[in-house]
């Protein structure tokens, strides 16, 4: 099976006034190639970038990527989705024999976007949804949260625990700009900006880039002693209609099932040692833990309070700090999550190292979507 043989990243920062998006891509790519010990001009067969044009601010984004990746006059394509979809694309290109070494890139230059709420609104169905209100579209996440909390008796305290846990985890991650030592009481004083959602539960945006070098089984064994295997990938979409989507992260449940089946994982809560999952709104971590079958929906709040998902707990979730600690990295979100799993599986996580052999990374395509992807990694 294909393996990760090199990783590199740039960031993550609340703002990056000194470097353009091309320059942060270059920085991340140079590090990944050095880590893998390869020359992109000679050794790479395929380059895959993941981007959404409206996050970039200009059209046909893929035309602008070859130079800074070392991909001039090479096969290059862009997937309009999260990094994990790009990883799945690399997996398929390698397994089909099209490439032996493929590179996957995603970045966020969120600080370049001046009207983020309007960009998100622009993703809503223009006839059916967008014109209903000009309120900031974070209410879309709050609608889902309201439904989910009520249906499964999710407490405000449990959601506050997610914020406290992830921001504290981020204090051990030098690349996480939003770390903080908070208490549940403090988090519960944060104002409701989109009832029932509090301001502190919404991940701030961040800049950064992630590049992975992926190699075939044979090639991976040749070029590294420490490959991290891609055991499974999955992706799934519900529907774009807010009136019929499940509000229970079915996209995450189904994409995880697809990835678990490939990886031969039958009991995720027992077999998975570490998880990095999408927490761009704090309640999403709880919803995604359940969807990834890492805990039961009626147990998840108690487990959260008991520290089960803490860095030193039985199943650490978002040891990196998650999006609440690292930031909302737009389409690079899944990249940061996969990066943390790879670093942890290699035993290179330093002060935040967790004992692990199997890890899962999951990303959602953010509001207004019910789509997402999952990857399972192992050593």
């Amino acid at each position, binding site marked *: 099976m294909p393996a990760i043989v090199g990783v590199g990243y740039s960031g993550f920062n609340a703002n990056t006034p000194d470097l353009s998006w091309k320059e942060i891509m270059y920085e991340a790519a140079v590090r990944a190639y050095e880590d893998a010990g390869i020359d992109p*001009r000679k050794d790479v067969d395929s380059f895959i970038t993941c981007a959404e044009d409206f996050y970039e*601010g200009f059209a046909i984004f893929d035309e602008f990527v070859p130079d*800074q990746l070392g991909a001039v006059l090479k096969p290059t394509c862009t997937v309009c989705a999260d990094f994990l979809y790009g990883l799945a694309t690399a997996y398929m290109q390698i397994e089909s024999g099209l490439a032996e070494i493929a590179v996957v890139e995603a970045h966020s230059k969120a600080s*370049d976007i*001046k009207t983020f709420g*309007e960009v998100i609104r622009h993703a809503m169905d*223009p006839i059916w949804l967008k014109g209903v209100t000009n309120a900031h579209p974070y209410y879309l996440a709050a609608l889902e949260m309201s439904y989910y909390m009520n249906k499964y008796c999710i407490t405000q305290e449990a959601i506050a625990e997610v914020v406290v846990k992830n921001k504290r985890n981020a204090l051990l991650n030098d690349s996480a700009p939003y770390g903080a030592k908070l208490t549940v009481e403090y988090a519960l004083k944060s104002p409701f900006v989109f009832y029932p959602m509090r301001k502190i539960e919404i991940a701030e945006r961040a800049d950064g880039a992630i590049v992975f070098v992926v190699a075939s089984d044979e090639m991976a064994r040749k070029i590294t002693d420490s490959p991290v295997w891609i055991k499974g990938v999955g992706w799934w979409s519900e529907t774009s209609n807010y009136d019929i989507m499940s509000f229970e992260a079915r996209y995450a449940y189904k994409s995880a099932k697809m990835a678990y089946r490939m990886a031969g994982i039958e009991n995720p809560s027992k077999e998975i040692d570490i998880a990095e999952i999408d927490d761009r709104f704090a309640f999403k971590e709880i919803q995604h833990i359940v969807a990834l079958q890492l805990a039961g929906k009626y147990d998840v709040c108690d487990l959260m309070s008991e520290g089960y998902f803490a860095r030193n707990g039985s199943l650490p979730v978002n040891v990196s700090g998650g999006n609440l600690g690292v930031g909302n990295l737009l389409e690079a979100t899944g990249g940061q999550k996969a990066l943390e799993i790879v670093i942890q599986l290699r035993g290179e996580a330093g002060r935040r190292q967790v004992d692990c052999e199997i890890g899962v990374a999951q990303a959602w395509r953010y509001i207004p979507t019910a789509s997402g992807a999952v990857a399972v990694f192992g050593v």
Partner: protein
Amino acid sequence: MAVGRKKISCPPYAEGTALSERDISERRVTIFEDHPNLVYSWTAGQAMSRFLNELKNGKLIATKCEKCGRIIFPPRIYCELCYKPIDGWVYVKDTGTVQTFSISYIDPDARPLEKPVIVAVIAVDGASPNMGIMHILGEVEPEKVYIGMRVKAVWKPENEREGAITDIKYWKPWRDEND
């Protein structure tokens, strides 16, 4: 290789029923209109920031790669062919040679322009071959433009420059002193 003015012809009619401006403004057809407020401010970065600041000085700056020997214009902080950081900065001239050009008669909405616009790709003197700038030509009749024509930048007055590519108003025909 002087090129004359091209005649653009449109068919006298098209099949079907055309929509008029009034059909839309009076909502005689079902339409949905939206004006998204999408605002960005792109970080120019190391290479482009220096380039834009030099424009204010009326200068064009490039970077160089000592491995392949190229003078890279417009500048970037990496050589995309050698895939390594650049080795330094070097000024290039504000003169060059037209590589290709187009005489454009209509705007993006297909309305005729008052005056045709001559868009050209100019290889800049001092930069490596085939490196240069896409810009517009001025002080020249469209039928006088040719590939291989020598041109020079016409800059805005210094106090009007703002560090934008439009600090160069246009490029005009130019004869080398030693021609």
